[in-house]
């Protein structure tokens, strides 16, 4: 019996990012910060996307939800660029860190495709997605600074 909270959306929001994190560790394990930036970019974007979709009115969800994903992804990539250029700028703006966190943002927006459509899913789906996002953001912070 599969628990009701474990649906396809939550699987899409967690398993691919976990797998990509393993790929980063496997091939770029000498640079924990690359994995960290990727996971943090994923968690931050998934979190913002879950919040934005959660507050979208049900009557406008069908027309706005899908088209909002690319702008949200670009917004998160831009916010990541600003943080990399300011508070996380130590020796320099690291282009590879930026690309990795932005790739995480793209994967998060791809996963969010499971949440959009003509019908707004029940709120609990966004809540579980947000919890997963916070977990990925935390893991990313640990890898980036550990």
């Amino acid at each position, binding site marked *: 019996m599969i628990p009701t909270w474990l649906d396809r959306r939550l699987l899409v929001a967690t398993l691919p990012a976990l797998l990509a994190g393993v790929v980063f560790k496997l091939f770029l394990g000498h640079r924990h910060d690359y994995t960290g930036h990727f996971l943090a970019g994923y968690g931050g974007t998934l979190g913002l996307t879950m919040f934005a979709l959660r507050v979208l009115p049900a009557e406008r969800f069908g027309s706005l939800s899908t088209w909002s994903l690319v702008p949200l992804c670009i917004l998160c990539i831009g916010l990541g660029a600003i943080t990399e250029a300011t508070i996380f700028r130590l020796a320099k703006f690291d282009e590879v860190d930026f690309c990795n966190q932005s790739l995480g943002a793209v*994967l998060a927006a791809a996963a*969010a*495709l499971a949440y959009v459509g003509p019908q707004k*899913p029940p709120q609990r789906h966004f809540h579980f997605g947000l919890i997963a996002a916070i977990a990925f953001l935390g893991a990313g912070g640990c890898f980036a600074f550990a």
Partner: protein
Amino acid sequence: MRSPKVITAVLLYLVGLMLAAANLWFTAARSTIPIALDGVISSTAMGREKHAGLDDVFWIRLGSQPAIQVDEPVYRAVAIGQRLEKPRWSKQLRVGGHTFALTWSQDFRGMIAAMPIVLGIVAATMAAATWNLPQRPGS
């Protein structure tokens, strides 16, 4: 509503493709293998990042050109006042009267393996997210 999802997926994938290509370019360029060099080193510098000794940043500047970031072995092989020469894509760097053999960094070799797989995961995620499955009650 399938079409907006497909358009969104294609746009996102193009962004991901550019980012993966940029990852490959930046890590490759730091070896100096893909770029041409011709000039006298006017300055070198090292910067500390989050993990000293692991992710330090190294720069060299030729004449009055903008400083370029290089891998640590390149930084260690050169000194201020030496002339550097190499054509694009050559693995032989002429440093003064000597030749230094350039190699791809661990970062670049990791990216070459990881980026295609990550792009595959992005594509698979899009396929799984847009797949129309019968919904369970309350889903």
